[in-house]
């Protein structure tokens, strides 16, 4: 089936070449990082994780899109999702590959990455994260590919795929939970030390992943001669609305605990995010943008006439995606380090090299996604117009 990705319109090839160029630029900067060290990034002694780990955290969420299609279709026989479960699984594949790459580019000694396997450490959450992420990647590659092959041959999927699909549901929950545990179990980082971290991750994941999927479905409908169906897209948009509401609610719950208790250690991080600390306000504009976009999107998604309009729905989904990207991909990780355990306020700004490498990894992810979706569309076309 892979050969189908070699046939495409001019637009397809321009897009692929564009992604290749972005990847190449990122790779050149990565070579520079390999040579010089992580000092090419904006990370410091106080803020020791930055854009890379934040992207990783956000993309674990995007990988959730699959389960929001698989669960209704396979457990509740919700037929409208039958056409697009493969799209969700392929999005999960691309997202998990990006996750792995972001962790990899964040390593100070990438050549030693196999030490994680050579010296397995069950007490380390990062060790378990590696296991659940690689498992999730394999499950989604297998199920997505096998189901698409069977669709092509117009035969029912083999029996052994079903248990794998059922397994993918709790497994999707596990990747968010374990990733949240990386943060939520650290003493002394009060911003992350909250039991609601995993539920928060899940809620924002089930909003951002399906939102991205809706955007892709709308693009495919317009430019790809593939219609996911009004019913499927509307059902997805309701999932996004509920998940976004839960996500906003969870953040508000955190804000209540931090500010009503008035425990400085808990409040100061949120203060940094939304107000700034001692004149350090680099994230404030971003966070208020994120909040405004989230509420705007929620408003648009819960008013049925707006939600049913493809154009407005696309805008709402872009809002959801951008809002949650800011929340997870910018705010959540960095703010855990501000202020530091010794109460120093060191701000973080990514460098050009760091941004180029980050864009490079995103470009690789989008390339994988484009190729997989191209194959999906080709198989679909073949069936529609033999």
């Amino acid at each position, binding site marked *: 089936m892979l050969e189908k990705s070699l046939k495409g319109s001019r637009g397809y090839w321009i897009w692929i070449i564009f992604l290749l160029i972005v990847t190449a630029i990122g790779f050149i900067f990565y070579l520079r990082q390999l040579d*010089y*060290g*992580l*000092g090419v*990034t904006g*990370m*410091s*002694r*106080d803020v*020791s*994780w930055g854009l890379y780990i934040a992207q990783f955290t956000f993309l674990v969420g995007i990988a959730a899109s699959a389960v929001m299609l698989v669960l209704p279709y396979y457990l509740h026989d919700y037929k409208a999702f039958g056409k697009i479960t493969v799209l969700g699984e392929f999005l999960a594949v691309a997202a998990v590959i990006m996750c792995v790459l972001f*962790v990899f580019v*964040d*390593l*100070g*000694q*990438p050549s*030693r*990455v196999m*030490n*994680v396997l*050579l*010296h397995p*450490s069950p*007490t*380390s*959450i*990062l*060790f378990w994260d*590696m296991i659940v992420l690689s498992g999730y990647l394999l499950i989604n590659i297998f199920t997505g590919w096998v189901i698409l092959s069977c669709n092509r041959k117009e035969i029912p999927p083999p029996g052994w795929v079903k248990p794998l699909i059922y397994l993918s549901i709790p497994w999707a929950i596990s990747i968010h939970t374990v990733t949240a545990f*990386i*943060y939520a*179990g*650290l*003493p*002394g*980082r009060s911003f992350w030390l909250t039991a609601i971290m995993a539920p928060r991750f899940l809620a924002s994941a089930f909003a951002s992943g399906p939102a991205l999927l809706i955007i892709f479905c709308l693009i495919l409908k317009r430019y790809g001669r593939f219609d996911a169906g009004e019913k499927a897209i509307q059902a997805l948009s309701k999932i996004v609305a509920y998940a976004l509401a839960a996500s906003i609610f969870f953040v508000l719950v955190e804000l209540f605990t931090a500010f009503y208790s008035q425990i400085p*250690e808990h409040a100061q991080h949120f203060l940094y995010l939304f107000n700034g600390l001692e004149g350090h306000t680099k994230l404030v504009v971003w966070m208020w943008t994120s909040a405004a976009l989230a509420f705007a999107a929620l408003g648009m998604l819960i008013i049925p006439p707006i939600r049913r309009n493809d154009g407005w729905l696309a805008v709402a989904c872009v809002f959801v995606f951008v809002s949650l990207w800011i929340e997870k991909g910018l705010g959540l990780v960095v703010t*855990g*380090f501000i202020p*530091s*355990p*010794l*109460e*120093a306020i*060191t701000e973080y700004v990514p460098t050009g090299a760091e941004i180029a490498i980050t864009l490079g990894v995103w470009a690789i992810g989008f390339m994988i996604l484009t190729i997989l979706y191209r194959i999906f569309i080709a198989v679909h076309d073949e069936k529609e117009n033999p």
Partner: protein
Amino acid sequence: MTTNRREFLKIAGVSTLSLIAPAIVCPAWAKEKIIPVSNFPEALSPSKALTAKRWAMAIDASKCPADCVDCIAACHATHNVPDFGNLKDEVKWIWREDFPHIFPEVNHSYLPKIARARRPIVLCNQCANPPCVRVCPTKATFQRQDGIVMIDYHRCIGCRLCMAACPYGARSMNYRDPRPFITRINPDYPTRTKGVVEKCNFCEERLAKGLGPACVLACKEKALVFGDMENPQSEIRLLLEKRFNLLRRASLGTKPQIYYIV
């Protein structure tokens, strides 16, 4: 060419003899030959090594003169700690810090000014229950029987999860090659490569040679006391028995082993 058993034994015997002969004929010369192989000849005699059930340190901040950096200089020179000259890349094992920042839970506006104005040293707490060891995905950070929390610079992958896990900010990352930024390289301790994390190691390499920690020996005021917490007769235990002392963020349950006499 065929080698029979007898010939093999003959060659093996001669080879062995050639190795041990110098030691028999001229022991002094042989010893000279051995020394360059190891930088720690003393370590070869384990009886000389300082041992304990749980190493700990007491710091009497009231004895620290305002501008003194003797312990810091000694530690950083002993361990080839680089000086990058900027805060972003900074690597440090011991440094001085404002009292209110070290003890945020204890600090308030009406503590005696003299206490609040103090700037005690901070270093790795060598926690008895170290979160950094728990989170390390490669066991590059580990805890010895005597409580010292160590880093294997050759196994560390530079993921910096330990830096996020440390509630004391004790760990530093080598964001770039540290070697050009070491004033004078001490051949008795390894330099590090870029991309690995480092911190105070309680001078385990000196303990193995029967020497106390460099910072303790460098302190002219005798403000630092190093010893075994499991030995009730040790100097540190007797001192802590007499003087009121604090731990940094004891409520976190990490069981720090640096005791601050206040």
